[in-house]
């Protein structure tokens, strides 16, 4: 397909000028216009349209706290911390990339070396009052550990509403029942990505 048909900004055949009568200038013309408008019954068209909608009773209201709109899988609301499917341990390796990339400086983390000499996250919090939900942390995460979830209803007594690591982490029983949702949106790997992976040529 070529771009030319989109680059042509001249008015094409689909456009036409609406046929508008000239405004009447003399009294007799004005009088005729009034009579025509009076007896054309346009007011009744309006009445019929709203009555028809009332009879059809096609209500579009969503009664919000009871019903909710479905939100897309790419929706970026409060963050979630995922666990590994196999072992149930936390995916976060404490690399600190999310803290580094966060453009509003809302992620604070602290790490230490635990007794098995593995890096462990000891403190992790996100200041939701500062977070702009840009999704960079989820995009940069090498382990798909931090993602965005669909929980958009936040209420707090102060603006600096923090979420701690424990609150974001998938509960272990939810993981075991197989209900941990993978984030399909920003930062997630595309489906069937492994089919497109090419082996690194060893020739050079």
């Amino acid at each position, binding site marked *: 397909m070529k771009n030319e048909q989109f680059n042509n900004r001249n008015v094409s055949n689909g456009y036409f000028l609406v046929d508008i009568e000239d405004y009447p200038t003399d009294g007799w013309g004005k009088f005729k216009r009034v009579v025509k408008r009076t007896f054309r019954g346009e007011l009744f068209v309006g009445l019929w349209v709203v009555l028809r*909608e009332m009879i059809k009773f096609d209500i579009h209201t969503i009664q919000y706290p009871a019903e909710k709109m479905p939100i897309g899988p790419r929706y970026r609301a409060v963050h979630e911390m995922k666990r590994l499917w196999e072992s149930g341990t936390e995916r976060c390796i404490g690399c600190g990339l999310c803290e580094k990339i966060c453009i509003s400086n809302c992620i604070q983390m602290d790490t230490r070396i635990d007794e098995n000499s593995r890096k462990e996250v000891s403190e992790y919090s996100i200041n939701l009052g500062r977070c702009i939900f840009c999704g960079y942390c989820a995009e940069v995460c090498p382990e798909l550990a931090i993602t965005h979830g669909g929980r958009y209803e936040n209420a707090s007594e102060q603006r600096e509403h923090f979420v701690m690591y424990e609150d974001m982490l998938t509960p272990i029983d939810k993981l075991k029942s197989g209900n941990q949702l993978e984030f399909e949106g920003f930062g997630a790997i595309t489906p069937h990505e492994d089919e497109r992976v090419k082996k690194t040529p060893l020739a050079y």
Partner: protein
Amino acid sequence: MDTAYLIETVIKVVVILLIFSALAGIGTYFERKVLAFMQRRLGPMYVGPYGLLQVAADGIKLFTKEDIIPTNVVSRIFKIAPVITAATAFMAAAAIPFLPQFTLFGYTVHPIVADINIGILYILGIMGVGLYGPLLGGMASANKFSLLSAARGAAVFISYEVVTGLSILAPIMMVGSLSLIDFNEYQAGGIGDWIIWSQPVAFVLFWIAAFAETGRTPFHLIANDHEIIDGFGTEYSGMRWGLFFIGEYANMFFISFVIPLLFLGGYGDGSLLGALGLLAKMSFFFFFFLWTRAAWPDVRPDQLMWLCWKVLMPIAVINIVITGLVMMF
């Protein structure tokens, strides 16, 4: 004046006051529901089943809200203005027969407070006095938008008084009386006797003028929507604003009673069916007030004046002349 008559009248006044104050509240519920359905919404849903108790919640809110008298207003007039609107609306009800007479425990009840022989003139006059509510309220408010709205409202009310009076003159000439009960008896013979068949022009004119008299949507200029604020009611709060509201809705109900009584046979021969018929006609006219609010836009003030003085008033005069000629020959 004997005591029984006095007691009966007081009871009737109290009953009408209570019923129509409550109906004004329920009227707001119906208005919100009907408008919502016509706009594919649900309207009030949370307070009570299907939002029915929303009326009570609004009432409690209005009654308990702080009564604010702003600093620069003319306080005495500011305070009395909402009372004028509500009081004149209810005073107009005195000459309206709401139902045919019926017998209760062997006592014949006339559901009209006073069958005065100038009935319709009294109703129109009192409704005309109702103009002073918005006018004084807007002028006393020390708010330029209230003042503008009051001026616009006064212009509309006074202009359409002319149309109301002239349009009703031709039926009055035919009936030969101003009492609404006489009007009803003139049309008691059935659908064929209704005045609407002999005076269709007067009916349409009176109906159009009723929208202006109650300040409803095609002529909703007293509280102008495109100024975003509530016209003469801007500075009012709490129950004082609520009185304006009750007055407006009571006016709508009373006009919805008056139109069928004048043109559509009223309660007919006075049977139960006739009484229900009057209520049904009243409901239709009340519904029509809400219906037009959903369907039609407001007209501009100058268009409104043009319509009144250059179209409706000449038609009304021509109608009177033709009626007179037909009656004479």
